[in-house]
């Protein structure tokens, strides 16, 4: 077999792999969307779920998903970005640094159901936050934090050494160099990473089963006082998210239109995650252009 032949075989194998990957994605997405899109309607999106009767919607679940996502991001982004900056800029190679890095990696690879159990024991029971938005967001923080740390660290490492030297050589302090030069330059890639991780958080279910709970009180969307028990903004009420809803409806739903609700919810979830991805790409592109000159 000559080298030309080998080359051709390698090329076809690689193309076949890529095609298989694309085929899996397209068929899965297509299946979910075809099954579910027909059940999505304004009514479906803006009606509360009904436990027994047909015709329930996913209004509360959709809201909960976004609310948990926002709280999680408020918790993870500041801590994660600071941690990433520490690892990229300040940490000196040594035992402590490699220990921290191992911690981040282990944290990132924890099975989410384990994170959920941990969240139930620590946040729900020990700290007494109950099944709540806050417990759920804390559990999601545990597994989203390492992602943000990694994204930030990679964003900084991708910058050229010359930028940092340029700042320091101008008599800027290390922190000022980070704040005014490195962080803005790394911002597009960090932001893209954050939005992509938001997609993952949005679709997470296992970690939320035991932390955010399987039910939602009757939310009054006219009541925006965070302290009131049926306010959508209340942090300490239970909050079933969309992906948890899909699971619970599928396993124990007793309403007659279980299948429709599950399909519709799945489609909404997938569409949201897709939108996050598209949004991340577009934003990354726009910001990149803005930085690299018109």
């Amino acid at each position, binding site marked *: 077999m000559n080298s030309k032949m080998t080359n051709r075989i390698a090329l076809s194998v690689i193309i076949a792999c890529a095609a298989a990957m694309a085929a899996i994605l397209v068929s899965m997405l297509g299946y979910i969307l075809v099954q579910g899109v027909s059940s999505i309607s304004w009514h479906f999106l803006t009606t509360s779920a009904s436990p027994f009767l047909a015709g329930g919607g996913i209004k509360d679940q959709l809201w909960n998903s976004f609310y948990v996502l926002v709280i999680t991001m408020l918790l993870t982004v500041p801590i994660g970005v600071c941690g990433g900056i520490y690892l990229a800029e300040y940490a*000196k*190679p040594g035992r402590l640094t490699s220990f921290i890095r191992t911690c981040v990696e282990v944290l990132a690879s924890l099975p989410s159901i384990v994170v959920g159990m941990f969240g139930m024991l620590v946040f729900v029971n020990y700290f007494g936050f109950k099944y709540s938005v806050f417990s759920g967001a804390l559990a999601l923080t545990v597994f989203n934090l390492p992602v943000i740390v990694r994204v930030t660290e990679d964003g900084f490492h991708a910058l*050229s050494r*010359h*930028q*940092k*030297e*340029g*700042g*320091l*050589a*101008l*008599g*800027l*302090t290390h922190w*000022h160099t980070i704040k*005014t*030069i490195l962080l*803005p*330059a790394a911002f597009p890639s960090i932001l893209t990473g954050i939005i992509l991780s938001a997609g993952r958080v949005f679709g997470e279910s296992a970690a939320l089963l035991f932390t955010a709970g399987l039910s939602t009180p009757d939310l009054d969307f006219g009541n925006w006082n965070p302290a009131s028990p049926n306010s959508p903004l209340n942090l300490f009420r239970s909050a079933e998210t969309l992906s948890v809803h899909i699971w619970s409806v599928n396993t124990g739903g007793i309403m007659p239109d279980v299948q429709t609700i599950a399909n519709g919810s799945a489609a909404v979830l997938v569409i949201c995650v897709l939108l996050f991805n598209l949004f991340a790409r577009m934003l990354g592109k726009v910001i990149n252009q803005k*930085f*690299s*000159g*018109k």
Partner: protein
Amino acid sequence: MIQMEKNIVSFTNNTVTKELPIQIKVENVNIFYGDNHAVKDVNLPIHEKSITALIGPSGCGKSTFLRTINRMNDLIPSARCEGTIGYKDVNILNPKIDVVQLRKEIGMVFQQPNPFPKSISENIQLPLRFAGVRSKKILKEATEDCLKQVGLWDEVKDRLDRSATSLSGGQQQRLCIARALALKPDVILLDEPTSALDPVSSSKIEELLLELKNSYTIIIVTHNMQQAARIADYTAFFYQGELIEFGQTRTLFTNPEKQSTSDYISGRFG
């Protein structure tokens, strides 16, 4: 043949008529990277308001030495320095000095143009703002002044708010020099500032440096011997970490004392 090459070199710009006062005095400087002894026992005077060129083959320690003068080598964890570099009655190598202040007085321009991915004016104003300048008027004037000093003003005055990365390589490098001038340093270090540029941009930078030496002390590392011969008043030849020879550029090029200097400038190695 070798003789002829020597004659091509012209010394139009750099006849030192009288010895200029010494601004930086380098004494017994040794630099190590871990176990690697990169610079060995260097003694060297740097004269005020003149251009001193550091030449030598790759890996001879000239860049390492240059980066020690404003302590940029602090960024490399394994680097270690011994000896004294005297500047304004302080030893630059003293670990206790304020490195940030030092770098305001001894600026640096790098081989690769490294403008920040910000607007042209922001590139110049950033160090000033950090130094505490708040007045918009002063910032604007400083921007214009610095850009004029490097001959970039007429080329960019209509697009000061455009990204600095949209400039050509040569313009970027002149912007980096302008940025270094903003803090009104005493000394400017240049680490092969033209090696990433085309010949036209390079000669612009050379002309610029000849002008700047009236106000600043300039130390330049260069791979290009013709460049050293054209612009430097003093030249130091480094080889394998040692300072082989130092003197007025004309003397060093036309009448070198050491055989290896003569071999290097006549192109026999390096």
